[in-house]
């Protein structure tokens, strides 16, 4: 791979499909709730029965405009829906209502951070369209089963410029976009349920060449891990192909996560010619300045601005600020914790990015479902701050808080974890440890500084971690002179 990268450059563009978090579908009043019994949320409009007419959902339009404003894009004052014609059973009308020539969101951009550098990625456009249904191919005696609950769910397709130069950049872009749509509250971002997925256009060219190589499109990638693997695999495949004298053909490929490879979708679909034309069932959509202004007023503080503020207001480093602003809930948790505990922001940030996030990850929970609320965590931090407990003991208390509903104070009392500040008691133990380990004392005195750690460890062990480590250090140093 390293050898490849010397001579070749990859060019990647992503098309992200974000399912908009509306209650009802884009053109009908059927529910968009996930997981319902098959076809119980597919009404006459979604089924494409004769005589029905689509009526556009205002919320879907608002969400698209909100997104456009957040990426600093041009919002089309006038946009048009078009029919994209193709035949597949999960698309009962024989066409998908989408946008072609006049999409609702035009040129915008998103900044990504890769290896400590910020790169601006252009966004060509974002348009509204309806999702298709689902085909199930198993266990129907040679037939396919069709569930049209998802048909008509509003999607925002976000198309980037081909400005991504590595799988890593593509992942960073996808993550940033994921973060943004969730901040805006326009998409729940649930990738398992397919609410956020992407297609990747990948090509390679010799370094220094201006023209793009022939691209292949990898369809329907629904995880950050897969997007990186799929793109890297595709880059390698294309380079190997060209270096062995072959040619890349323009085609659609599917990523197979089990085999870690992409393979060609060899089907008649390839011959598709979508024959877009304006949908006569829908009138042009007008976005007025007033409508735009109303939506602008609802925009929350966006991740980039919030990250900047966190570094300035709280003195956090870029990395912590980045983690804490990766979701709105997480940044709210942090700010509430600082307010509630009145502790130093850095202490709050460390506990969230350390123990709290680690525990959430381990149990696969979201911050919104954290068993330890910011109020309870604040109670713990207050006890670290007033030196009732050491940081080490605090970790134990945190674990117990995770498993119960008790407050930090209750646990500290119950388990007798209060830090021992009685220097007499600490001194007695230090004297004993020194007396019991003459060999180590000798080693230390002969210049083996490392042995010092042994003494600290022994004292802390004797005191079950309840002594202040700084205090123990100071006293030991004095005693071992």
């Amino acid at each position, binding site marked *: 791979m390293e050898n490849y990268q010397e001579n070749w450059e990859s060019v990647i563009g992503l098309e992200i499909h974000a399912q908009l978090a509306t209650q009802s579908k884009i053109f009908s009043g059927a529910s968009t709730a996930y997981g319902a019994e098959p*076809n119980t949320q597919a009404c006459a409009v979604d089924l494409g029965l004769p005589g029905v007419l689509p009526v556009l959902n205002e919320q879907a339009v608002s969400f698209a405009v909100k997104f456009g404003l957040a990426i600093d894009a041009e919002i089309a004052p006038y946009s048009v829906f078009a029919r994209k014609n193709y035949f597949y059973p999960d698309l009962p009308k024989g066409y998908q209502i989408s946008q072609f020539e006049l999409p609702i969101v035009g040129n915008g951009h998103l900044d990504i951070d890769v290896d400590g550098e910020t790169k601006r990625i252009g966004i060509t456009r974002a348009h509204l369209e309806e999702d298709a249904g689902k085909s199930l191919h198993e266990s*129907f005696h040679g*037939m396919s089963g069709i569930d049209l609950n998802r048909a008509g769910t509003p999607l925002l397709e976000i198309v980037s410029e081909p400005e991504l130069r590595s799988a890593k950049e593509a992942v960073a872009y996808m993550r940033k976009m994921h973060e943004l749509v969730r901040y805006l509250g326009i998409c729940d971002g649930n990738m398992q349920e397919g609410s956020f997925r992407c297609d990747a256009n990948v090509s390679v060219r010799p370094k220094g060449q201006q023209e793009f190589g022939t691209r292949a499109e990898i369809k329907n990638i629904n995880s950050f891990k897969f997007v990186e693997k799929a793109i890297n695999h595709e880059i390698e495949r294309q380079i190997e192909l060209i270096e062995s004298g072959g040619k890349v053909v323009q085609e659609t490929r599917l990523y197979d996560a089990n085999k870690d490879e992409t393979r060609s979708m060899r089907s008649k679909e390839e011959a598709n010619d979508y024959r877009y034309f304006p949908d006569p069932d829908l009138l042009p959509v007008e976005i007025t300045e007033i409508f735009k202004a109303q939506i602008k007023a609802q925009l929350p503080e966006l991740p980039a601005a919030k990250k900047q503020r966190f570094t300035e207001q709280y003195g956090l480093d870029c990395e912590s600020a980045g983690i804490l602003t990766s979701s709105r809930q997480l940044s709210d948790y942090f700010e509430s914790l600082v307010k509630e505990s009145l502790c130093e922001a850095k202490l709050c940030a460390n506990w969230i990015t350390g123990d709290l996030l680690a525990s959430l990850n381990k149990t696969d929970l979201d911050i919104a479902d954290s068993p330890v609320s910011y109020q309870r965590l604040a109670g713990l931090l207050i006890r670290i701050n007033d030196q009732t407990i050491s940081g080490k003991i605090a970790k134990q208390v945190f674990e117990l808080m995770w498993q119960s509903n008790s407050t930090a104070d209750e646990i500290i009392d119950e388990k007798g974890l209060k830090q021992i500040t009685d220097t007499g008691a600490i001194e007695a133990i230090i004297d004993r440890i020194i007396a019991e380990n003459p060999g180590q004392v000798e080693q230390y005195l002969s210049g083996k500084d490392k042995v010092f750690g042994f003494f600290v460890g022994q004292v802390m062990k004797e005191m079950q971690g309840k002594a202040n480590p700084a205090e123990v250090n100071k006293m030991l140093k004095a005693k071992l002179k």
Partner: protein
Amino acid sequence: MVLTADDVKKIAYLARLGIDHQDIESYARDLSNMLDLMKQMGETDTGGVLPMAHPMDQIQRLRVDDVTETNNRDNFQKIAPLVEDGLYLVPKVIE
């Protein structure tokens, strides 16, 4: 522009239309004539004219985002040729 028999077959396939072999020639002629008309229209100077997206000079009305439909699956599935476990069954499609 003159369409060939193959062009006509391709267009028919894209639209999933079954056409009789003997009609292909006349379709090719009619469609070619239409394209010629398009070409002629294309020569008109339309600079400064906004493309018309819809014959009605109106703006799309928007719907409030409320769920107004209830589950009507049983009725819809009565008219479907084949259903099973709530799914519509169709001849197998493989990706």
